[in-house]
């Protein structure tokens, strides 16, 4: 087939392109993945029984804001990496800011406690299970985000795979916060990040193979 004929073929029967295709695919993928993760938390892990009283603590909301900010920034970055020729701009900074803020808060908390409470604040009661549960909960979102990304046109496949994993990790952490009893800044700044990095690294490994187009 000559190139001119291919051009004619592609242009023929021109229906309007779906201008909301990107937003719709993200909305479908994210709500499906997060929905399954939410089901897993409520049915399998269980919502923490003292959720109502915990919600009166400022630290509960700081934790929520921290994870929500990471989730929002990772979605922004994923959107940018979905479109050819789009610059990532300030989004990596928006991703780093909540983590740095949490580390500063952890430093202040440890300083104030005179260093004695560090171990209890850092390990909490659930350090063994937390990263594993976040990584496990990220699986439905991870599958959903790979599906989303495969409908986009990422030109940096490893970065796109990593950020798809990061969206899954931060989304899973957001849902996991309903179950998780920990509020110590050192805990949140380390074990949560570790849990989120598991799907991120997996995505970076799989991206070049799974996201080609």
């Amino acid at each position: 087939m000559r190139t001119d004929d291919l051009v004619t073929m592609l242009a023929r029967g021109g229906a309007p392109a779906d201008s909301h295709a990107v937003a719709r695919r993200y909305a479908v993928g994210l709500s499906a993945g997060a929905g399954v993760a939410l089901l897993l938390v409520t049915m399998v892990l269980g919502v923490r029984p003292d959720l109502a009283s915990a919600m009166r603590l400022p630290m509960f909301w700081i934790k929520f804001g921290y994870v929500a900010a990471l989730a929002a920034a990772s979605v922004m970055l994923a959107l940018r990496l979905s479109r050819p020729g789009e610059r990532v701009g300030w989004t990596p900074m928006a991703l780093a800011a909540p983590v740095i803020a949490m580390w500063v808060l952890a430093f202040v908390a440890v300083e104030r406690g005179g260093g004695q409470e560090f171990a209890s604040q850092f390990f909490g009661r659930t350090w063994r299970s937390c990263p594993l549960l976040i990584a496990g909960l990220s699986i439905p979102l991870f599958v959903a985000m790979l599906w989303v990304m495969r409908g986009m046109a990422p030109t940096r496949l490893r970065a796109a795979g990593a950020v798809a994993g990061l969206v899954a990790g931060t989304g899973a952490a957001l849902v996991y916060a309903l179950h998780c009893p920990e509020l110590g800044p050192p805990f949140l700044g380390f074990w949560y990040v570790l849990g989120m990095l598991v799907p991120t690294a997996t995505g970076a490994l799989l991206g070049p193979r799974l996201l080609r187009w």
Partner: protein
Amino acid sequence: MTVAQRPSVSESESRLHPLFVAALAGDAAAYQQFLKELAAHLRAFLRKRLARMPDEVEDLVQETLLAVHNQRHTYDTRQPLTAWVHAIAKYKWIDFVRRHAGRDALHEPFDDDDELLAASDEDAADARRDVAALLALLPERQRLPIVHVKITGLSVAEAAALTGMSESAVKVGIHRGLKALAARMRGTR
């Protein structure tokens, strides 16, 4: 012989952007004009980069045009068109070179200081790979809608009546068929 024009990038941007925006809104004539001009830009871009494999240029022009078509939903009309098409062309070029790295061990540097829309070349060579032959390999529910609507020029409703498929199945068949065609293009070299 090669007809090389040298339009400036901003000139091409201001010509091609409204054409593509109209095309996305469903204007087939604007889309045809856009793709035709884009093909000339892609040809100049790829001829320069695949200087040692001139026979592959037209195949890659076609593969990139199909990619632009299949991924057109990822274009944000506020974005410079230059950046979008350049990123796709560069991605396709690098992907192509990687596919061939085992066979030919190319050592082309991936620097591209010049923009895609800076040069144009309307002199099409023959493609080695026949898209029509690849099309014949698609399953019927994808092939028939493409043949009736995109090649013969029937409307979606006419193609639906002719094949006994629903109109939405015809549209889905075209969409999925063109994606499958792109996948076969990547796999058949």
